[in-house]
């Protein structure tokens, strides 16, 4: 039985709510990522043990889904929406500007964890296409020039 001082104690309420049921694996992984920022190896082991699942099953499932991270999030998370509405209204140029400004390829994260660049397939507010998101701010009807300035202002 885990106690308050046990590792990953913050996950206990969620595990209890799902009665340690294996079919709650994805819910538990969501919760784990929310609490701890990413799914580290020890965290995945802990989840496997608590849900009585083989570690391979837990890792196999987690790696199938795009939203699960196995590394801590970068300090600046830069995202370009490449949903259809954004794509036809300038997303490719925004991706290029991001790649140039960050010195990163799409899908990459800088080794020192300063920034990452990824895409999302529709943020759901297509009327403001094209959109980018940097950390918690959204750039609507984003221009390339505006994005360049924005990137220059990112803290090193």
């Amino acid at each position, binding site marked *: 039985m885990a106690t308050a001082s046990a590792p990953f104690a913050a996950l206990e309420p969620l595990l209890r709510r799902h009665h340690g049921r294996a*079919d709650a694996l994805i819910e538990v992984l969501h919760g784990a990522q929310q609490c701890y920022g990413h799914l580290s190896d020890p965290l995945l082991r802990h989840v496997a043990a608590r849900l009585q699942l083989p570690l391979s099953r837990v890792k196999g*499932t987690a790696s199938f889904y795009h939203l699960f991270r196995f590394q801590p999030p970068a300090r600046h998370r830069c995202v370009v929406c490449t949903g*259809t509405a954004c794509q036809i209204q300038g997303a490719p140029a925004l991706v290029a500007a991001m790649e140039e400004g960050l010195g990163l390829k799409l899908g990459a994260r800088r080794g020192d964890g300063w920034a990452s660049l990824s895409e999302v397939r529709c943020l759901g507010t297509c009327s403001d296409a094209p959109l980018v998101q940097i950390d918690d701010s959204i750039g609507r009807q984003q221009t390339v020039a505006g994005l360049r300035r924005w990137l220059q202002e990112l803290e090193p």
Partner: protein
Amino acid sequence: MTGLRCCASAGCLARGSGALMGVLETAISRGELGDQIQLRPVGCLGPCSQGPLLALDPDGDLYAGVDPQDAETLVAALARRLHQSSDQATPLEWAPARGERLDLRAPFFQRQRRIVLEHCGLIDPTDLEQAIAVGAYGQLERVLQSWSPEQVVTELQRSGLRGRGGAGYPTGLKWATVARMPGARKVVVCNADEGDPGAFMDRAVLEGDPHRVLEGMAIAAYAVGADHGFIYIRAEYELAIERLRLAIEQAVDRGRLGAALFGTGFGFTLELRVGAGAYVCGEETALIASIEGKRGTPRPRPPYPAELGVGGRPTLINNVETFANVAPILREGADWFAAIGTAGSSGTKVFSLTGHVRRGGLVEVPMGTSLATVVLEMGEGSPHGSAVKAVQTGGPSGGCVPADRLDTRLDYESLQSLGTIMGSGGMVVLDQNTDMVALAAYFMAFCREESCGKCVPCRAGTVQLHGLLEKILAGQASQADLDQLETLGAMVMDTSLCGLGQSAPKPMLSTLRYFRGDYLARLGAP
């Protein structure tokens, strides 16, 4: 009573409607007008491209692009009118300095017929009492007390409702199949994965009127003999998830969900399952695997979910909008519903209109409305100086309708005959500058990335097809490459296991059909 409805759906929130609400609230309480002006946050009002939107009751005037300063002067003007007379017909001496009053006689509004969205934009989606006041759970109560499950199924069958998730399978027939399955513990699943990039109909329904969907699911559960349900929703829809969680909680507290509903022996419990970013999980067998906490890979059908679904139990899966149609069908009757739309496609369809269009947003029109009406009249065509080249429907599983075929009616069969599909309702307008080969390559890249890799035609085929499209884009392809594109495309369609692979070549084949010139112009090699 004087009322202000402020759009609090994701589109307008991103454009500052949260701040607008705050200013209105403060101004109302400062003027001690809380008893006379009712302020409510509501779901999507429609013309999202002009947000943030504010509606003024009792007349329903709609204002676009209203800013906080406008909000201050508006409340002041309302206060003046309230002091002068109790007559709401007295003209309001106010005009927004920045925003504009929208002309409700415009086709964008006049051509709509809101059934699914009838209460979206009217009620506060976080307030169950407001939903109940406009009839939420009334049809559930009525069928539980005086209808047999068979009667409900028959009514749905007679209505002609077809699934709004893409394939258009007759809903009543699906319900009848699940109802016939043995076993007392069946499952009802709502597919809220809405993975097509550029589509936000389901999100708007869930954000604007969540109880409508819960009621539809509960009625379905009664009809097919289920006692438990899941809503599978994509993780990106944070606001919709939050509103659904709250709605479920409220419905349970008020005895609209749970055991022994309305004093009958029928009970229905509901759980939310949040996806984790895999497009293929919208496919029903993959979705079931994902609900069970596994990798979301599709499996061959049969057995269909009706026989073998969540946890091995008979399972009914319908789309958000399908469930949202249930209560009005029962309230107004199957004949009423069947009379709307066309013979083969009854009712309405919600579309998210985006892309190169002047007026974008959420529209609900009767089935059978022409694409020209939606895109050229309601959407007012492409922005100045450009012309519509094509309209994309059905996302990565659909295709393009060229401008000279915009007289096509929006029903399942007409769209299919053009090589596209109704899909779930994403409608992206493309102007004359759109590169159709690049668009085809874009959708193919999407399918390549989202392929689960289980079967070879899809896993390897999408990689090859994408490679060929890139080669054409680079001006290095020959006629032989183009021929291979078509042969390989046909093969992937015919031999893939699930709908993702089976329709992955569709956007490409459809652009080849109508815009072959765009391809030929790029052939470089001999």
